């Protein structure tokens, strides 16, 4: 650690000059100590200064006590990806302090509690020792709050040393506590005291500074899970069934928190049912039942939960029931590493269900897309009468991201082909019949009726087992082959309707990068750095499966293609080898899967490694 082998990752080695708005710091604390409030106060204050900022929580699966790290990166150029190195360490966890200090690059900064009497083990970094206990002791703070409030000391010291206006830390706290005066005052008094102590006692001897900019004006800051929740609420979700699982829990929490958006002002009653199920099987069953009966139904889960939902996902595919599953992915294997990010479910999700199934998957790459796919997923599910699985991940879902304010849905709800009583009467009058799975429009999608439709011919029998196009039980081979052929037509038809990839393409460039999801900021930054060294790349970001013609063409139009993803097996690359039938030996998988958000450095190094050959 501490070796900076990507030249551009830190300016620290260019001696002398101040380093402004282009560095990262890490806050090392104990899990459960309440440091998240302090970290978010810093992120919000920097955001208010107009500096592009991104915070990432790298935390253990533990309630209290184990070490946790929070990294905050400011970038005048707007880069938001995680950096492998941080120049500043706020070492507030004695058990990891040695490691944290050792990881600093030469010229780095360490802020740590004075009372540890740690000693200066390195001569090439700057130490600032602050009296945490004494600062807090001066105030009448309830014992149970003391540990959390202690973390405000580093907020005050950072504000003073690196130039954050004190008032902005207060405004950040007001946002954090939803304007509640008491906690704001309790925390702010400590920030202020620490700030003043630093002003009187510390001599600044490092080169790092924050300076106001105007790059966050009009932007919002939000997590992907909150964005997804708002998307679902604006998408008309009516039934949410779920079972708690990290890192998806905060998605449903945000639906619950914003449920007021869907309280009918006329009656004071809710237009969305939110039910915590007994497990993920029941959650999946409830949304399948609800989708069948006409609800816009969704669940949110993560890998282990998706495993339990497999049978229902397959049933919904064959029974042709619209449901939306958010899979906020985390590390496997098996029960997985619940607090470590990953993109390891894409193969499983794409083919989930036994028998021949391929499911529509959406791959949001930003919080804006979490919002957009939040509502759009229901339109696709109802249009194609099938499950839609949205694959977010822990990094996107649980961390705070800067974003443009969300755009209001640009089209009305698409409820798909549903025949109510009048429409059914008209349909039968025109066609002389109506059968549930008959492909009247040759697009693979039949017309459905909802239970409760007041017409003697509205009913049909829904089953996962064999049926003919009249929804009648059948074990005949020809019936089933015909049904599968229609489902295939439906799936092929969906290619043209799922979100299309985002492509940056110049025919003169010979190298293509393909990625998806939360890797986007790291890919964008890596491309800039590669370009600075003369390695020009094109970039295609996949936003949905099945893939489209554009993806096929992109793969085929380059001499070399790198598929960048955050899992070990290169799962998207495997999918692309299926979707692109031609020889794809020029396509190479760059797959990491180390449980951490992707860094530009890793992409840069790996692309360069192969390109230099």
């Amino acid at each position: 650690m501490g070796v900076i082998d990507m030249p551009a990752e830190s300016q620290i080695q260019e001696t002398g000059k101040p380093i402004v708005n282009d560095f990262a710091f890490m806050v090392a604390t104990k899990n459960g100590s309440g440091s998240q409030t302090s970290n978010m106060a810093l992120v919000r204050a920097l955001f208010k200064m107009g500096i592009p900022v991104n915070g990432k929580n790298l935390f253990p699966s533990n309630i209290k006590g184990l070490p946790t790290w929070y990294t905050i990166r400011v970038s005048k150029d707007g880069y938001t990806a995680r950096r492998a190195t941080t120049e500043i360490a706020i070492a507030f966890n004695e058990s990891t302090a040695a490691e944290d200090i050792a990881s600093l690059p030469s010229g780095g900064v360490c802020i740590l509690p004075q009372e540890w009497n740690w000693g200066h083990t390195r001569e090439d970094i700057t130490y600032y020792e602050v009296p945490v206990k004494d600062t807090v002791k001066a105030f009448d703070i309830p014992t149970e709050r003391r540990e959390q409030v202690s973390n405000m000391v580093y907020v005050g010291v950072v504000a003073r040393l690196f130039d954050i206006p004190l008032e902005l830390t207060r405004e950040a706290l007001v946002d954090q506590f939803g304007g509640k005066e008491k906690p704001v005052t309790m925390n702010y008094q400590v920030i202020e005291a620490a700030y003043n102590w630093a002003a009187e006692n510390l001599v600044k001897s490092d080169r790092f500074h924050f300076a106001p900019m105007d790059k966050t004006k009009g932007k919002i800051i939000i997590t992907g899970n909150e964005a997804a929740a708002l998307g679902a609420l604006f998408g008309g979700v009516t039934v949410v069934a779920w079972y708690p699982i990290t890192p998806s829990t905060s998605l449903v929490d945000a639906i619950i928190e914003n449920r007021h958006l869907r309280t009918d002002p006329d009656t004071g009653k809710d237009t969305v049912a939110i039910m915590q199920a007994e497990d993920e099987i029941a959650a999946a069953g409830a949304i399948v039942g609800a989708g069948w009966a006409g609800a816009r139904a969704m669940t949110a889960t993560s890998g282990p939960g998706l495993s339990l939902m497999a049978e229902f996902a397959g049933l919904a595919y064959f029974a042709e029931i619209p449901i939306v599953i958010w899979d906020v992915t985390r590390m496997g294997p098996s029960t997985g590493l619940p607090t470590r990010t990953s993109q390891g479910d894409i193969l499983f999700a794409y083919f989930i269900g036994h028998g021949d199934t391929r499911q529509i998957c959406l791959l949001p790459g930003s919080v804006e897309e979490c919002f957009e796919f939040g509502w759009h997923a229901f339109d696709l599910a109802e249009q194609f009468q099938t499950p839609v699985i949205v694959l977010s991940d822990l990094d996107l879902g649980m961390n705070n991201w800067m974003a443009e304010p969300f755009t209001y849905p640009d089209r009305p709800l698409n409820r798909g082909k549903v025949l109510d009583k009048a429409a059914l009467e008209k349909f039968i009058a025109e066609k002389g019949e109506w059968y549930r799975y008959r492909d009247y429009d040759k697009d693979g999608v039949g017309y459905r009726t909802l239970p409760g439709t007041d017409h003697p011919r509205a009913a049909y029998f829904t089953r996962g087992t064999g049926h003919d196009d009249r929804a009648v039980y059948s074990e005949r081979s020809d019936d089933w082959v015909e049904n599968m052929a229609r489902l295939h037509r439906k799936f092929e038809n969906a290619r043209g309707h799922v979100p299309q990839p985002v492509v940056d393409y110049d025919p003169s460039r010979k190298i293509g990068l393909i990625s998806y999801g939360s890797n986007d900021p790291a890919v964008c930054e890596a491309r800039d750095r590669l370009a600075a060294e003369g390695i020009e790349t094109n970039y295609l970001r996949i936003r949905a499966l099945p893939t489209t013609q554009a993806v096929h063409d992109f793969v085929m139009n380059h001499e070399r293609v790198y598929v960048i993803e955050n899992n070990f097996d290169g799962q998207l690359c495997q999918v692309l080898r299926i979707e692109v039938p031609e020889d794809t030996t020029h396509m190479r998988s760059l797959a990491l899967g180390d449980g951490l958000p992707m860094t530009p450095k890793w992409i840069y190094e790996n692309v360069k490694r192969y390109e230099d050959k």
Partner: protein
Amino acid sequence: MAANRTIGKINALGLTREDYKGGKSTLCPGCGHDSISNQIISVAYDVGLKQENVIKLSGIGCSSKTPAYFLGRSHAFNAIHGRMPSVATGATLANHDLVAIGVSGDGDSGSIGFGQFKHLIRRNVPMVYIIENNGVYGLTKGQFSATADAGQVLKYYGRNELPPIDLALEAIIGGATFVARSFSGHAEQVRSLLKAALAHRGTAVIDIISPCVTFNNTPTSSKSYDYGKAHEIALHEIELIPEGFVPEREEINIQDYEEGQIIEVEMHDGSYIRLKKVGPDHDPRSRVQAMELLEKAGTEQLFLTGLLYYEEPRPTLGETLNLTDTPLAHLPEHKLRPSKEALDKLMQGLM
């Protein structure tokens, strides 16, 4: 068809009993389940049930095939093994106007879906939950289920050493507000319990012993026809008196019965269940008595049938969740998508 309808052969909706039938059964001839399907058809016809408002739900197993054999004008969902309860939960949340009839078996509800069975009850999902209980797995050819008698011997699977699960007792413990046991050979009782269950607002569980003629019908099995016919002890005669049905009520000559021999239970819609004692003393309004009775039935091998437990229903799941009166599935777009102003306000708050 209309020409064949004569007075007395059509119900309040102008439908014949034939109109309430489903497809032809593919179960073994003589299966107890077919008898239950027939009682469902009769009851639906008798009470003038509007089939278009009914949903039929099931899991997997012989019992779960039966929704195809009754109420052909009702939507049906043959789901996956043991998970009918969650599907019913979601469907009734989406549309609380639907009348839900679930058909399950002892494998479905007593084993693979035991958790879902209990949690559906705990949530008080409004539905009639029928268990067609034969103590054996039929479609996989004769394994013991969790309700099989202890000590019972089956041809290929030997002796069952484990105690049976009493699904009616489990339903009461789980918080069900209507719990009954019946016998598919006792058609009249099945019908009267179904009528009462349909009038109940909440989860109504009816555990019906329904013999498997192929794998578990030896007279020593407590799930056989012979055993049932010989040993059934009905607790009451059961009658559902519709709302406002005053004249007949007055006709009852209470004097004919000793005190405690007639119990009347008022339902939420103003109808009531009248129970005339025919077996051992039992007041189904007492949870403790009901559990004691089933405990005794278990230890003394008594086959008691009838309404075991009834209580004033708790709020249904939808009521607990404070949902709109308009079913969620019927809400128009302007009730489903908040305004642009609402989004802009949220965005302002995040800046």
